[in-house]
């Protein structure tokens, strides 16, 4: 009910612009006061806030539908199963997967990548083989591959980046060889904002019969994702970064890969039959969903994606680009500010340093002004090392942010400079 109303409000027929005031009303937390100031939430790359419709869906689930899924004949179990599987179909549509069983519910992007590293890895990556990642990966897309490579004796190879934070894609061709088993690449970098030329990477990889995993943890909330058009072999993302709940995420995989891979975890739901002598595994997607899933999380994520679709991902992207351009202008022109990550293709993330002032001090002082940004290595220490900074301050934007908030951020940075004299 309310969702519908708010979404309509957000889309005034007369204009193609977002009605930000109306959208902000959908997010109750945005009214919060922090240290006596109006909250300015610019930490969206860490996690997004949730619209009321998602909270309502969770409430409704627990007050009218809650049951375990899949194994029950009773009413609630049927209802919960329908809602849970309905969420899978919503996600299938959102990313335009060919089949709903190519959508595996995970607990987040990190688990999705670990699933591939463990399951695909155990089956297809052997001693002497190679896996390629890039120099701008999140730790979630580094450590699982390091663990795999160490276990099987494979080699991890790194596509380098340039000073703007762009992928040196020309180096990729020379890096692929007969031992290359997978390329795992971030779609949109959380530390730099870089949008990678994933379509070209996939084309190159496929011309060598190498599959590609995209880490879409950041991309999914800012770009229209079409896994069939991208032709990626695997795609992962997290619910909590696309206005959904924590503890839920998605792994998309092409059927033929998922069919050929062994299960990741063992337990209920992922089996077809169990005996002490012989256990046979269930078909997709259940083979990869052991145990009771995060039912409320899946349902909440489905509603979150509906909400985003209701506003329109293209319009969201357009508005966010406007915000980023404005922030780049306003923040970038403050004396002493250095932007980290200046790729031509970029979205929603503004990483920066201030001369002689450590990002943590920036973070603490801004926090006193009610402004939430992130200060640190953003789980991308190799990126920090590349740019030779211990950390950066990072403001990251969502469609519910405003230019006024960016102005407040600029004032906050002036205050930081003042404090440090």
């Amino acid at each position, binding site marked *: 009910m309310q969702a519908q109303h708010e979404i309509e409000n957000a889309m005034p027929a007369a204009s193609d612009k977002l009605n930000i005031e109306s959208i902000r009303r959908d997010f109750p937390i945005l009214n919060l006061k922090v240290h006596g100031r109006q909250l300015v939430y610019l930490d969206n790359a860490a996690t997004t806030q949730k619209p009321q419709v998602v909270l309502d869906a969770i409430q409704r689930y627990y007050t009218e539908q809650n049951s375990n899924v899949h194994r029950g004949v009773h009413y609630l179990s049927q209802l919960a199963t329908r809602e849970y599987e309905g969420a899978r179909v919503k996600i299938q549509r959102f990313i335009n997967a060919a089949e709903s069983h190519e959508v595996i519910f995970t607990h987040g992007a990190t688990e999705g990548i670990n699933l591939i590293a463990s399951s695909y890895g155990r089956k297809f990556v052997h001693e002497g083989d190679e896996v390629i990642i890039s120099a701008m990966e999140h730790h979630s897309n580094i450590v699982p591959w390091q663990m795999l490579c160490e276990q099987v004796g494979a080699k991890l190879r790194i596509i380098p980046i340039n000073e703007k934070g762009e992928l040196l894609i020309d180096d990729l061709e020379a890096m692929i060889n007969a031992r290359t088993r997978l390329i795992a690449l971030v779609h949109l970098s959380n530390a730099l904002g870089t949008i990678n030329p994933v379509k070209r990477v996939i084309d190159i990889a496929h011309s060598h019969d190498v599959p590609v995993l995209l880490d879409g943890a950041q991309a999914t909330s800012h770009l229209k994702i079409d896994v069939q058009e991208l032709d990626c072999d695997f795609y992962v993302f997290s619910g909590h970064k696309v206005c959904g709940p924590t503890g839920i995420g998605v792994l998309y995989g092409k059927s033929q890969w998922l069919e050929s891979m062994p299960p990741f975890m063992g337990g209920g739901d992922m089996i077809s*039959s169990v005996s002490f002598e012989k256990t046979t595994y269930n078909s997709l997607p259940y083979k990869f969903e052991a145990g009771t899933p995060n039912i409320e999380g899946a349902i909440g994520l489905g509603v979150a994606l509906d909400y985003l679709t209701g506003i329109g991902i293209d319009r969201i992207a357009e508005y966010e680009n406007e915000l980023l351009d404005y922030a780049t202008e306003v923040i970038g022109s403050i004396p002493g500010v250095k932007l980290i990550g200046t790729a031509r293709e970029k979205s929603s993330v503004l990483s920066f340093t201030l001369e002689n002032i450590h990002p943590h001090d920036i973070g603490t002082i801004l926090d006193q002004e009610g402004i939430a940004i992130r200060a640190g290595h953003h789980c991308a220490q190799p990126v920090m090392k590349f740019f030779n900074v211990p950390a950066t301050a990072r403001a990251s934007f969502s469609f519910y942010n405003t230019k006024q908030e960016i102005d407040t951020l600029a004032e906050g940075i002036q205050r930081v400079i003042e404090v440090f004299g």
Partner: protein
Amino acid sequence: MSDISELYQQVILDHNKKPRNFRKLESANREQEGYNPLCGDQLTLYLEMDGKVIKDIGFQGSGCAISKASASMMTAAVKGKTKDEAEVLFDEFHRMVKGELDPEKEENHLGRLTILSGVREYPARVKCASLSWHTLHAALENKDEAVSTE
């Protein structure tokens, strides 16, 4: 609320108690396993094919009243039919229990099988009714793997 006796009609209870063709077929030249992993319903189907014709058919296994009655009625319905005729029935039956074919409105060859149409009100039980049909379908296609309704 639909009346439960619509689902558990006398004919169905009767097929459940005294399933037709409930036996291992010694003359079988095709054998097919069917399995519903969620329920644990299990069934083995034996076919004696004479060219394209299902000359004889039998089944064994365990399952609920719906799956047993459905298997029993299925064997009775397809015995003596050709592969193609059976496939038509499979398709019609499948659509009926999923609520996509209304036997009162659309022409069909289901005959007595329409007694099972009540199942469409019970989504949890559709798989029970269709397990034997899926197994038949696989046997006719001569697939190697056990069939599962999941």
